[in-house]
């Protein structure tokens, strides 16, 4: 429930803004010159704001579509990400957004058409090859669909441009936007998972693992390509038993032939983000794990990371061919210098 909506001056006339205002007619409207005036100031408590985030309606300017880190991808040669939304409905304790953003408010960039134009420009740079666009980097792609109308707006666009490929990254089980449309082979809906026991401890406000599995099964049955993201890998008691069980559960329900890709991601966060995250939640056992600093990142000690990743790779390869398995080496992009 959104109680406060900040808006850049002039943005309320935009049709997307109007649709949002219709959803929340009682929200307090507060104008601002630029979304960063509200979102960026230091000294905000991400943790407190997360209890009841405000929504900021804004127009994204400057560069709208960015190249992804070299180690992040699911098989394509040309990979970009874009963020129509900053921040997430869910509250996962391992999420790098809480270390990256000064505020937990949602920022919705309503100028979807400008994103689409930029996506087209990037796609036309390699017109005969698939170009991938990742939409769930700074948010969950679908969790706030009711507010953003993102999938509703972008799926018809991607339907018209089959060489442009979209990854929707989500933990949401509300997938009406997909269910109502004909499946698109250039749109992969990728669901993130940790085992039940970890999800219960760390993924606050997130639908249960079993309901996510039901959701992925449902849209796969409808013909949508689906992806599985076991990301980030969390070191825990009974790691092997828990992750084996998760992988087994997934592939008991899902026909591996319908799975577009599976990726494994280590828990690695830029050092400055990790410091902020552990300061926000000093009582959180996750942050007392066996971590070390490597380069600009904090992650599990190398031997743990390698062992855990190798175990999961072997388990996954029991169900899927190697070409469907991708290793993502980073969680969270490096801070801008």
């Amino acid at each position: 429930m959104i109680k406060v909506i900040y808006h850049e001056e002039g943005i309320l006339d935009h049709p997307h803004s109007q649709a949002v205002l219709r959803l929340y007619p009682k929200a307090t409207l507060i104008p601002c010159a630029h979304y960063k005036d509200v979102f960026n100031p230091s000294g905000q408590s991400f943790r407190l704001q997360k209890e009841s985030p405000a929504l900021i309606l804004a127009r994204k300017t400057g560069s709208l579509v960015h190249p992804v880190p070299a180690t992040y991808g699911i098989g394509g040669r040309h990979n970009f990400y874009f963020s129509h939304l900053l921040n997430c409905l869910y509250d996962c304790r391992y999420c790098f957004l809480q270390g990256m953003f000064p505020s937990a408010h949602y920022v919705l960039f309503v100028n979807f058409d400008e994103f689409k134009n930029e996506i087209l420009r990037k796609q036309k740079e390699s017109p005969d090859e698939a170009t991938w666009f990742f939409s769930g980097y700074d948010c969950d792609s679908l969790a706030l669909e009711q507010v953003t109308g993102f999938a509703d707006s972008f799926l018809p666009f991607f339907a018209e441009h089959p060489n442009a490929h979209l990854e929707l990254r989500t933990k949401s089980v509300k997938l009406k936007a997909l269910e109502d449309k004909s499946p698109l082979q250039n749109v992969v809906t990728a669901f993130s998972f940790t085992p039940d026991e970890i999800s219960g401890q760390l993924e606050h406000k997130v639908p249960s693992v079993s309901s996510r599995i039901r959701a992925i099964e449902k849209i796969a049955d409808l013909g949508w390509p689906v992806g599985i993201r076991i990301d980030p890998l969390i070191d825990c008691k009974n790691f092997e038993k828990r992750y084996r069980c998760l992988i087994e559960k997934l592939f008991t329900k899902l026909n591996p032939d319908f799975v577009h890709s599976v990726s494994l991601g280590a828990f690695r966060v830029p050092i400055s983000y990790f410091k902020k995250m552990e300061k926000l939640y000093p009582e959180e056992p996750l942050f007392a794990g066996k971590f070390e600093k490597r380069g600009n990142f904090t992650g599990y000690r190398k031997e743990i990371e390698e062992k855990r990743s190798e175990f999961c790779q072997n388990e996954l390869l029991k169900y899927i061919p190697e070409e469907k398995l991708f290793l993502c080496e980073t969680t969270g992009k490096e801070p801008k210098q």
Partner: protein
Amino acid sequence: MNFVVALKAEAGPLIEFFKLSKQSSEELPLFTNDNHRLVLSGPGKELSAKATAFLRNRFPLPNQAWLNFGLAGHGSLPVGKIFLANRILDKQERAFYPTQCLKHKLESSALRTCSFPLSGYPEAIGFDMEASAFCKTASPFSIRELIQVIKVVSDNPDYPVDTFDRSSAGALIEKALPSLLPVVDQLETIAKKIELPMGLKEHIDSVFSLHPFSETQCHQIRKLLTHAHALGASKKDTLQLVMEATSEKQAISNLSNSLENHRILQ
């Protein structure tokens, strides 16, 4: 909880309600009880900034709640209406947006801080002479969620400021108090939420007292004890480990070794 209020007439009902005692020999008029502190700043930005800084220096505690409370003009709200400022504007400063995290039934309004009293009400927002300086001065001392401005409308286009009877100030504030107090309670609750987990700070202090730790060692100990707490280790055991150590270095090593096998999520 820190209150910065311009005039005695505005502060009177708060001083009375919280049974605040005037502190003698202070640089500025200061009223306190165990949990609340109120400073009278006098009117205007400069005095408000000075009083806010004074209160912080006098009670240098991090992340306390700060409230600027008092009377203000308003372009549209009726006299006596209490409102929470949702953005503080000032021609000389960047706009300040206090985080709207309080559950309340107050009006929500923008507030413009002016350097001089205005002759009219050019916008349907509040007008005062202190809030922007208060926010700017308080913000390095606390998180934005805990810096709030609440005003009671004393004048508006129907009852302009030159007709305002100063002797009615106390009555206006007193009438608004029942609406203000739940917000004060909430601010105090929020301030408690962001403190270190229950008893951890005291535990860390008692460990520090056992050895002459250097700054760097204190930092290491603080981190280890926080991890120990997160992992559910008993305070008694961690204290024992530090007591048994014959040096600061050994204390750190004892703590670190004892945690090693527990550093895994359940």
